[in-house]
């Protein structure tokens, strides 16, 4: 993301889904529910029935006592097509210094997750949702995380229809060809990593021809990233020339169509993939300067194409990825109110260093096309990122106590921006139900306006306790 984007980001309000997509979700939900009801569900199948494992006398003698009442979680005779699960979680986080945001907490929430899936003949219906009491936003909300129907209309075709999480590409916390929604607020607040990927309302068609996967995603309205808007975290405003946290972010919600395609294969253990997309920047990298929408940030059109490779190398794994961003509304790069074209490049290597300790490094390059035009036309050229912005990352992951304690350290460092982001965490899985996690998000930078530097007052500590059921 270049600085101009960042600056533009800085003036964007919270993301509220448009009424159209909400209507779409509810109609899909209604449809799925009807399908489920039509299945003439046997009441005894609905609740997972606790059944003692039928064990031989010999087996019982040595194991019955230690397995206790725990069963295989279903009827041996006939497995229920319904699956229920979920978790409850409490999360707390606070800034370690004064922040200009309304609240001095970065995380204060109680979350209840419910997951239901129904396995029918040739299809699966999945519904996952969170009821979230959010003390930072001071609101109670229901987030449908997944609500989709998966089926195989043809022998070699899988379709997922509805709300779903989609991820592709080879980067670790760095995304080049993956234009699907990310929730950066969750990431910076210390929520579980799963929340970094926000759900999309899409149709995904996966076609398998021999060893090749064709993956096509169509979203009638693309889902933008949940970027920093001032509601929870502060950012640098080039207009105000300081770090701000406005209550409202002036944004035009132009959520147009998005097409994304991936063609992937694996030959002798080496994975190759090609990517393309036609849609919009997923952060508001444009600002209207005239007309009715003057002053509003918006999502300019974006076409991308790219490729990736992932392969074993020495005793580890190497990955390389490239993406070309064609910012079609400003292909000459002379409009300072719309992001320029970019080329993004990534190399990564991961290896186990010693037993239970894995290390990974990445080098990321973000090249801005027509940089001269960009600087000449910029209103604040001194705050712009360099033509070749570079980021190095290091990840260390240590597993101990029979993998119940995971210690992780992730560092982003940009030599060109002279800023960075340190993300340490420890997760203790007490048993199959309880997990306690704690960590920090530490930002620093030479300048207030650089990518991570503008977040320095967002540095926070967090703690989460989760009960899985």
């Amino acid at each position: 993301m270049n600085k101009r984007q960042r600056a533009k980001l800085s003036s964007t309000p919270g993301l509220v889904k448009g009424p159209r997509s909400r209507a779409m979700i509810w109609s899909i939900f209604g449809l799925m529910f009807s399908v489920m009801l039509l299945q003439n569900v046997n009441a005894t199948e609905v609740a997972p029935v606790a059944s003692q494992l039928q064990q031989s006398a010999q087996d019982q003698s040595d194991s019955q006592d230690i397995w206790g009442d725990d069963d295989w979680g279903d009827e041996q005779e006939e497995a229920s097509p319904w699956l229920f699960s979920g978790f409850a979680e409490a999360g707390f986080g606070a800034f370690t210094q004064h922040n200009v945001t309304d609240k001095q907490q970065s995380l204060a929430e109680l979350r209840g997750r419910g997951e239901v899936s129904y396995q029918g003949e040739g299809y699966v219906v999945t519904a996952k949702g969170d009821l979230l009491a959010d003390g930072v936003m001071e609101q109670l909300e229901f987030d449908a995380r997944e609500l989709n129907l998966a089926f195989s209309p043809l022998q070699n075709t899988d379709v997922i229809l509805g709300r779903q999480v989609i991820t592709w590409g080879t980067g670790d916390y760095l995304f080049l060809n993956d234009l699907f929604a990310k929730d950066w607020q969750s990431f910076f607040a210390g929520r579980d990593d799963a929340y970094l990927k926000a759900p999309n309302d899409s149709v995904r068609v996966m076609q398998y021809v021999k060893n090749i996967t064709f993956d096509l995603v169509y979203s009638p309205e693309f889902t933008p990233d949940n970027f920093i808007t001032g509601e929870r975290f502060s950012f640098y405003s080039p207009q105000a020339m300081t770090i701000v946290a406005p209550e409202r972010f002036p944004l035009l919600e132009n959520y147009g169509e998005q097409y994304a395609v991936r063609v992937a294969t694996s030959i002798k253990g080496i994975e190759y993939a090609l990517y393309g997309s036609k849609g919009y920047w997923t952060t508001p990298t444009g600002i209207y300067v005239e007309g009715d929408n003057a002053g509003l940030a918006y999502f300019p059109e974006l076409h991308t194409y790219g490729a990736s490779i992932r392969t074993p190398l020495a005793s580890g794994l190497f990955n390389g990825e490239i993406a070309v961003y064609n910012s079609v509304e400003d292909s000459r790069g002379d409009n300072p109110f719309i992001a320029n074209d970019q080329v993004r490049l990534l190399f990564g290597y991961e290896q186990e260093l010693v037993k239970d300790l894995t290390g990974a490094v990445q080098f990321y390059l973000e090249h801005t096309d027509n940089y001269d035009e960009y600087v000449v036309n910029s209103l604040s050229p001194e705050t712009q990122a360099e033509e070749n912005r570079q980021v190095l990352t290091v990840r260390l992951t240590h597993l101990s106590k029979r993998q119940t304690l995971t210690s992780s350290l992730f560092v982003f460092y940009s030599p060109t921006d002279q800023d960075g982001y340190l993300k340490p965490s420890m997760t203790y899985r007490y048993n199959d139900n309880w997990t306690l996690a704690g960590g920090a998000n530490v930002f620093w930078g030479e300048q207030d306006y650089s990518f991570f530097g503008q977040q320095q007052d967002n540095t926070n500590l967090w703690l989460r306790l989760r009960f899985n059921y």
Partner: protein
Amino acid sequence: MNTIIKGLIASTTMLIAVPAVAEQLSAEDIIRNANLASYYAGDDGRAEARMLIVDQNGNKQMRQFNILRKDVADHGQQNMLVIFSRPTDVKGTVFRVEKHVEQDDNRWLYLPALDLVKRISASDKRTSFVGSHFYYEDVSGRNPNEDTFELQTASDDSYQIKGTPKNPDSVEFAYYQASIDKSTFLPMQVIYFNEKDQPMRKMTVLKTEDIQGHTTVMHSKIEQLSDGSYTEMQFRNVSYDLGLPDSVFSERSLRTPPAKWLN
């Protein structure tokens, strides 16, 4: 995670009943038969499995999953799929392995919450499989080329074989002693020793069953002798020679587990 899978597969695969042969078998022959019996029963196989992981304080954890396996060649390449169903935080996680003999295995892990296909480097063969006392290598089978073998004794019903790693730095043990059933060639007990000849770790088969003519491990246990912690693994619904198509062992099955072959 690797370890668990290997353990699982090992236990599942004890199916091939190798005809009892005369006693002039060499240690290498016996190990070869044991490898076949433990990991290559049938041309393919399916099992449901669960593990109970008990730490030194008696705290318990559980893992439950389905395993699908298909051999490309006996003693050679195998493809495996492990699909987790319990507990909640690992439900839907899928582990896929292309096991090779002459090169490192290829391994992938699918994390459904992120829709992420993560590749795992092959170096951690002796890492715990999903937190259990089974190593990845126990699940998919230790490559016999890694060790040298010595037939110590042979009783009426078992062989005692000592295995010594060719590259001692690659493993945490100095040697191991396996007790291999003469009629089935299944290793019924394996004890791993350190350099001081102290037993560190013990695998015991607690129950076997004849399934489609293959004697199959249905219940096994690995103990960490230093602290008394252990993992038990049980299998059920084991079957062989299902005719699993190659396409089951592909990226597709990570996102869309092949329901047809799991029930």
